[in-house]
């Protein structure tokens, strides 16, 4: 099946009524999650995972993916109207988006953000349809050493891109991997670190830990900070269309942001955030009026808003083609795939084409829905921001506990949720990055299995991995990624008497 046949087949799946409904529910929830500061897309995906149990695997993935890219659309609304980013990837939009809103151009900023997101989404889907099959066919030649080196490289790149110091990131990687070793060992079936508990023998579920780290820890922070309701700036429907000059200034930033975002999405880590900052820097550099940036330049909204959506779509490629999650949201989707019994990895496309092509095509349908939702209904979403924070926080608390319990009706999951929330809050206070922990936990089983299989394959001599072209190249890149901060640290020690931490 080539990409065009695949897309046509995918549309026949995505346009079935149950899947259309799933897509609509996903993008609607995603937009609401993006608009409301507090609960992010990862928490929302984790909460709604049990709801997908009665759906088909394709329907479940379509809904969860919709939440993820829908939140990217919604995140721009609060950035522009309140100067409060609904999502971290919309932080940069606050600079020029809010300034535009103050000058009465909120409608134009929201319109350009929505169009940019749509274009980026479309570019991402085409990239996904054409690149993922190529990558998957290459990955069919991957053996355990390739998967092992890919996981190691992914964790290293993720550690370097989150802004955390290398040492703190290493502690988080080790903690995540350590948690992944709880339960039955994959080869021998020996129970590890269960302390006699039958519940723990099944291993720790990813979802309660994700909800705890990203949902409950946020609630604990909100309990201390007591957020106040902000009054958003008004938007009138007739102000939605940008002027011809604004439109002309937005076109190329949208194109550049879409491509840049998509390419960043292929890299492990919080690439949507990095893509927005890179796009902003690029547009400022290329602009004839760089002094307008920060004062309400429309390019500062068009580029980054396209980039974060491009990155969101690009992040699906490693997941769907290789079965390896490179971002926390992808880890949630992988969990959903495993729960629904789908074959993950390069064979997903061959064995479950309805999932791969159905999800890919549904993204296009979802992007059209988002465009229709986000422009005429902007007033409805803005009204959500007028809800008192105590009401939203209490509702999120209830959703966290019910969502966690619904996974397997287990009280242990609820205790894991609470413990993860406390740990997540502590890690934030101590400047550790919980996203690294979650990714290491998600990659742990793949990493351990490929590590043990590589040892069998090489008769205990892991150096042989370097002789394999793909695995060897990835190992060399991993070493370079590891050495880069050490080189920078040594350079800073030579240049300055004050020592900077690695």
């Amino acid at each position: 099946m080539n990409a065009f046949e695949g897309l046509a087949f995918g549309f026949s799946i995505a346009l079935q009524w149950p899947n259309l409904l799933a897509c609509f529910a996903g993008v609607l929830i995603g937009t609401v999650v993006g608009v409301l500061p507090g609960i992010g897309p990862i928490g929302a995906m984790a909460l709604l995972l049990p709801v997908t149990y009665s759906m088909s695997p394709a329907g479940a993935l379509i809904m969860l993916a919709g939440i993820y890219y829908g939140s990217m659309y919604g995140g721009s609304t609060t950035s522009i109207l309140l100067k409060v980013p609904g999502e971290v990837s919309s932080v940069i939009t606050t600079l020029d988006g809010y300034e535009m809103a103050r000058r009465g151009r909120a409608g134009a900023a929201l319109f350009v953000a929505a169009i940019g997101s749509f274009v980026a989404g479309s570019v991402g889907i085409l990239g996904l349809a054409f690149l993922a099959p190529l990558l998957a066919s290459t990955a069919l030649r991957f053996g355990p050493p390739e998967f092992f080196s890919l996981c190691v490289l992914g964790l290293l790149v993720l550690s370097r891109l989150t802004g955390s110091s290398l040492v703190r990131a290493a502690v988080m990687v080790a903690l995540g991997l350590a948690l992944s070793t709880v339960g039955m060992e994959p080869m021998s079936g020996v129970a590890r670190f269960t302390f006699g508990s039958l519940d723990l023998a099944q291993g720790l579920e990813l979802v309660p830990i994700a909800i705890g780290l990203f949902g409950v820890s946020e609630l604990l922070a909100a309990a201390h900070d007591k957020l106040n309701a902000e009054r958003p700036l008004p938007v009138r429907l007739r102000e939605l269309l940008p002027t011809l000059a604004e439109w002309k200034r937005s076109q190329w930033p949208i194109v550049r942001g879409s491509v840049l975002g998509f390419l960043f999405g292929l890299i492990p880590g919080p690439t949507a955030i990095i893509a927005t900052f890179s796009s902003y820097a690029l547009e400022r550099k290329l602009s004839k009026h760089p002094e307008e940036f920060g004062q309400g330049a429309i390019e500062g909204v068009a580029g980054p808003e396209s980039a974060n959506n491009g990155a969101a779509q690009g992040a699906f490629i490693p997941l769907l083609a290789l079965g390896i999650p490179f971002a926390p949201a992808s880890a949630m989707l992988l969990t959903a795939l495993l729960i629904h019994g789908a074959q993950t990895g390069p064979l997903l496309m061959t064995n479950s084409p309805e999932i791969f092509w159905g999800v890919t095509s549904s993204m296009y349908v979802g992007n059209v829905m988002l465009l229709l939702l986000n422009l005429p209904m902007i007033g409805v979403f803005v009204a959500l921001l007028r809800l008192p924070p105590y009401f939203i926080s209490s509702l999120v608390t209830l959703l966290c506990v019910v969502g966690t319990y619904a996974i397997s009706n287990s009280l242990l999951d609820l205790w894991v949720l609470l413990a993860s929330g406390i740990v997540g809050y502590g890690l934030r206070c101590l400047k550790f990055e919980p996203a690294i922990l979650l990714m290491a936990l998600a990659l742990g089983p793949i990493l351990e299995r490929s590590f043990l299989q590589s040892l069998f394959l090489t008769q205990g001599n892991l150096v042989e991995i370097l002789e394999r072209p793909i695995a060897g190249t990835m190992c060399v890149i991993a070493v370079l990624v590891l050495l880069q901060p050490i080189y920078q640290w040594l350079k800073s020690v030579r240049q300055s008497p004050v020592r900077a931490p690695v």
Partner: protein
Amino acid sequence: MNARSIGLLTAAFFLLLGSAQVFLSLRLPGGLGISAAEPGPGLFPAVVGTLMAVAASIHLLQTVMTRGDAEDPVARNPIDIIFLIGTLSAYILLLPRAGFLVSAFLLLLGTLSIFGMPGLIRRAVTSALMTGISYLIFTQALRVNLPAPTWFS
């Protein structure tokens, strides 16, 4: 407690955790395995524990070498955080005995108070309404199996 002391305690905790993992990995049946070509169930956790212990040791050294004038990173008045943790713990303990309706009502009453909703009667009415509506949505629309009370059975 200043940031430096908290950093030292954190690093020491992770050093202890990593060391404990290595120790427990060695005591697993089969341990590290016969040889590198025939690894045991303890090999991977032992490698991970070593990574944690080494990273924590470097973090400990870095913290020792830094000056201790940084701001305290932990909340100064964590009373609301403690209340929220207590409310969530009470919900988990009550859920299998009192069932969803009573536990969720009390959870919402607690969280609405913690997050600052004014008026006890308003809080109680809002909690009751939210509990009832969420119960209907979860059980009827989303088919979630919620626990019934077992105290009287």
